[in-house]
Structures are given as structure tokens and as C-alpha cells.
């Protein structure tokens, strides 16, 4: 399942979707992002991987102008992102941070996406056009019948779709998702990735963070290895090498390639034994190709 992103041919193509140059961010004096430079083209589908504390979430929030930065420039579709001012970008937070006991229905959550930016006051109701937009979106995401349900009554995949709908109702050209596949089962993960691929196909630039190198990152067209700075950026086939992964995670990794399939494992313990036995059993002429950072 390699999710191809088709080349889009609009006049905006010359402007990068995301253009970050020399970005430095720090929380309470502790540097989180250091001299980060990255360009993502419009219509791209990019996964950001890296160890905990590598600054994945900070990077997404920086694109939204929500993180104080000490240096550097961030442009989204050519427009400078100002500190403390939200750009019109779709953002889906980690579902773990949601208060599932809060009394809101699906429709109420999605309507939050239509809160007018920067305003203190507005009318409390939605216009007819806004209501139709929400209904059409829920329908499209396959949760059309769940509009009046409480958010706790949904399955993991449906919950993910609700928060995706909240981001999409703003009709963003750039969609940022923080760990959209963490804590969901295999089928849901598959559904979510498919949905994102569809959106990407329609021209939305998608950037997501993930912990899952094997079942998520390896299927995306492009991957960023992040550890405070960009260690590598490119298609998984060229980025997932033992040397780059070690530089990203600070631990030795094994990369097993079998045709289109790439499997990454840490070098310690049981995985190594299994892969060793496996290649022995199949003989030397097998296509398995195990790479480690200290040679092949």
C-alpha cells in the first residue's frame, strides 16, 4: 500500500506548501528545534518520524504559529506565519488529549472548526450553508448518521473522523495530524490512512507525525526523520537506512528489505535472532537483504 500523491498542476506550484528556514524553538530555555530547515511541496503526503522529545508536535504547532521561536522563518503557501497568530491550516490533535466525558455531540465538535478566527464575539448559531457543509462532510467521512451522538459513543475510527471533520470544515489546503494512528487498531489505522490518501488525492497537502515506522511511515510517499533538526527527508526507501535511523533515534537499527516490503527493528534482543534464523533457513540466494549500521 504505497500511497501515491499525484502531481498537482496549479499556478501555486511554485510556492512551497511549507517552507521552514533555520527554525529555532525553545521551551523555558530548553531548545526543542535547532536550525530546522525543510521544504514541503504542495500536494505532498509526508510522515514525520523521530524519537519521543524530538520535537514532532512542536514542529506541527510551530507551523500554526503557536510556538514561540527564537530564530527562523516559516512560510505556509508563501505566507509568513506570525507568532501567536493561527494560519488557516487544518489541525488534528492527538486523540489522547481529548476529554471524552465533555458534553458535546459530533456536530458540535465539527462546528468548532467554524469558530471565526481572532474574534471575541459572533452569533452563536450556524448559518444554513454552514450546517449543510457540516452534514455533507460528515456524510463524506462515513459518519453522516452520527451527528447527534455524544463523542464517547463512537468507535476509535469514528472519533478520529470527527476531529478530522473539524479540521476539514475550514477547507484547509494543508492538513496537520499529530499521531493519527496511535492507539487505534489495525483496521482503523488502515481506514485513516486511506482517507488521508483520498484527501491528498484531492489536492490537500498532508503532514502527519507517527511513531510507527513499519506500518505507517513505510507506506507514505515521503518521510522526514526528525531529531531537533531534519536528519533526512525523502521517500522511505532511501531514508530508512541503518545509518540515518541511528542518527535519528540514537540506537542501532536493522532494516530488512524484501521487494517492496521494508521492516525496521531495533538491533537488541529477540528480533535479531529471528531475522538471522530466517535468512539461514532460506539460504543465501534469497532476496532478503538485511542492513545494519556497521556494514551489510
Amino acid at each position, binding site marked *: 500500500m504505497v500511497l501515491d500523491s499525484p502531481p498537482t498542476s496549479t499556478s501555486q506550484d511554485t510556492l512551497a506548501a511549507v517552507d521552514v528556514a533555520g527554525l529555532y524553538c525553545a521551551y523555558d530555555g530548553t531548545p526543542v528545534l535547532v536550525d530546522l530547515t525543510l521544504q514541503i511541496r504542495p500536494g505532498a503526503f509526508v510522515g514525520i518520524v523521530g524519537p519521543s522529545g524530538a520535537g514532532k508536535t512542536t514542529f506541527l504547532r510551530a507551523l500554526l504559529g503557536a510556538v514561540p521561536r527564537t530564530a527562523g522563518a516559516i512560510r505556509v503557501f508563501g505566507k509568513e506565519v506570525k507568532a501567536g497568530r493561527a494560519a488557516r491550516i487544518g489541525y488534528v*490533535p492527538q486523540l489522547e488529549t481529548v476529554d471524552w466525558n*465533555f458534553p458535546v455531540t459530533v456536530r*458540535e465538535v465539527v462546528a468548532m472548526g467554524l469558530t471565526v478566527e481572532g474574534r471575541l464575539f*459572533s452569533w452563536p448559531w450556524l448559518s444554513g450553508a454552514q450546517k449543510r457543509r457540516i452534514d455533507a462532510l460528515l456524510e463524506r467521512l462515513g459518519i453522516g448518521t452520527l451527528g447527534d451522538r455524544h463523542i464517547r459513543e463512537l468507535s476509535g475510527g469514528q472519533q478520529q473522523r470527527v476531529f478530522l471533520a473539524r479540521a476539514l470544515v475550514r477547507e484547509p489546503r494543508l492538513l496537520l495530524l499529530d499521531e493519527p494512528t496511535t492507539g487505534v487498531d489495525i483496521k482503523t489505522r488502515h481506514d485513516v490512512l486511506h482517507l488521508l490518501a483520498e484527501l491528498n488525492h484531492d489536492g490537500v497537502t498532508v503532514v502527519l507525525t507517527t511513531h510507527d515506522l513499519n506500518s505507517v511511515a513505510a507506506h507514505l510517499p515521503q518521510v522526514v526523520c526528525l531529531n531537533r533538526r531534519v536528519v533526512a527527508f525523502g521517500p522511505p526507501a532511501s531514508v530508512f537506512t541503518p545509518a540515518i535511523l541511528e542518527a535519528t533515534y540514537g540506537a542501532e537499527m536493522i532494516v530488512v528489505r524484501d521487494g517492496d516490503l521494508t521492516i525496521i527493528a531495533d538491533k537488541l534482543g529477540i528480533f535479531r535472532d529471528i531475522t538471522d534464523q530466517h535468512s539461514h533457513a532460506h539460504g543465501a540466494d534469497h532476496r532478503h537483504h538485511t542492513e545494519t549500521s556497521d556494514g551489510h
Partner: protein
Amino acid sequence: MLTFLLDPFRYDFFIRGLIAATVVGGLCGMVGTFVVLRRMSYIGHGLSHSVFGGAVVSYVMSWNFYVGAGLWGFASAVLINWTARRRQIGGDAAIGIVTTASFAIGVAIISRARRFTRNFDAALFGNVLGVQPEDVYVVIGVTVMVALVVFFAYKQLLFVTFDAEVAPLYGVPDRWMDALLSLILAATVIASMQILGVTMIAAIIVVPAVTARLLTDSFSHMVLLGAAIGTCCGLLGMLLSYYLDVASGATVVLTASAIFLLVLVLTSVRRRLRSERTRRSTARLTPAEVSDLFD
């Protein structure tokens, strides 16, 4: 019977008290939804104690009560927010420090001059007799103002209440909304103080909102239901206060608690009946039907 029911309405002070308590009940119920869902219940409790300090100081300095207590209350709310932003100090600890110190200032001043003591019974426990026409106007004014703010900032307040982390990422001015909520809460506490008493306010803010939460899963319904339940509590509590000759703050709180208990029991029974029904209806299914359910 009719004369018994109409009896209290012969007194101006009672009619004033009834209007004030009913409106205050609705005000507290409406504000309560935000307080409960933002887990600010303790702030309401603390703020009312804090304002007591302001009330005593403004009495001693012979300032207008509402001006003195208002400034004092807003200053404490800002101070709490500011203290709680320090990561080493939790919100609850910040409230504990600011409001108890403020309350202690009031107590200290009263104990220096014992002749004040009786005047502050109303502020502590609420007093129907103490309600002046001026108080009724203030209560109505504050309620109208808070209702307007909640109406026109509804979307923004809902978003920051639901997810304070993500709301600013969607362009909601979260700092302003925090300040607005503090202002609303301070105004509510001050307007309610003369009628319900410092010690009772927190309960009348929290209990109707929690009761409404048991009855609905929708935010807008919770705000409206909270206000409606609060209004009923104010009205019923005030009538009980007259007939039972008990402090009005206490009867309003006890009415609210009784309604809460009733709703808690009814919703628990309903929930049990519903799960029982599901269990029975699934027990009668054939294995094929059961497997259909999971498809």
C-alpha cells in the same frame, strides 16, 4: 390555603428577595456549566471567600460595596490565573493561597473592631431581609450582561472550555476568553453574595450545572438546562426560606441538592433499565442474529 400561599407576597422585602434569588439562581446555573466543565469549581468557592475580604475592606473604607468587592474580586481572579500559570504551582494551590489570604484580611479587620460582626452575617450566610432595591437592580444587570456575553461569545467559550490547548491553534483568542470567564465568574459571585452568602455560592454555581450534565450530552442544552434548574432552585428555595424561617442561602442550596439527588436516582434507574432491556433482547437472539450484530 390561598392566603397561606399569598401571605409572603404582602411584603415588599419578600418580593424583592424572591426576584433576586430567582434571577441569581438562573445566573449561577448558567455560569456553572463553564465552571464545572473547566474544573473551576474550586475557583468559585475560593473567589466568594476572597470577595468577602473586599466586602469588609470596602465597608471599613465606606466605599460602595459593589465597586470595592468588584475590584477586589477581579484582582483575585487575575492573581489566581497569574499564579496558576507558574508550572511549579498547581491551580488549586494558587486558589488556596490567594483566596484564603484575602478572606483572612476580612476576618482580621472584623476581629479588630467587633462592632462590625453582625453586619457580615448576611454576607456569610445570605439574608432575604437584607435585599435592597439596589441589589435587585445589580443582580438583574449582571445577569443580562453575563447572558449577553455567553450568547455572543458562545462558540469561542465552548471551544476554549472543551479544549484549551487546541482552541488557540484554531485562532480562538484564548487569553481573552480566560479573562472573560474570570470576569463573568467574579461578577456572578459578587452579585450573588448579598442574597446567597459567601459560604453557599459555590454550591449554587456547581449543583444545577452538574444536575444538567446528568440530563444531557449536549453543551448548549447543558447551559440552558443549568440556567433553568438554577432558576427553579432560587424560586423554590426562597419560598421554603419564608415558610420554614431558615436562611435563604441554605434553603436554595438544599433545594438544589434535593433536585440533584432526585435526578441522580432517576437517571441511574433509567440507565439500569436500559442495559437490562438490551441484555434481555440480546439473550433472545439466535447465534446467527448475534453475529449479525457484530458485522
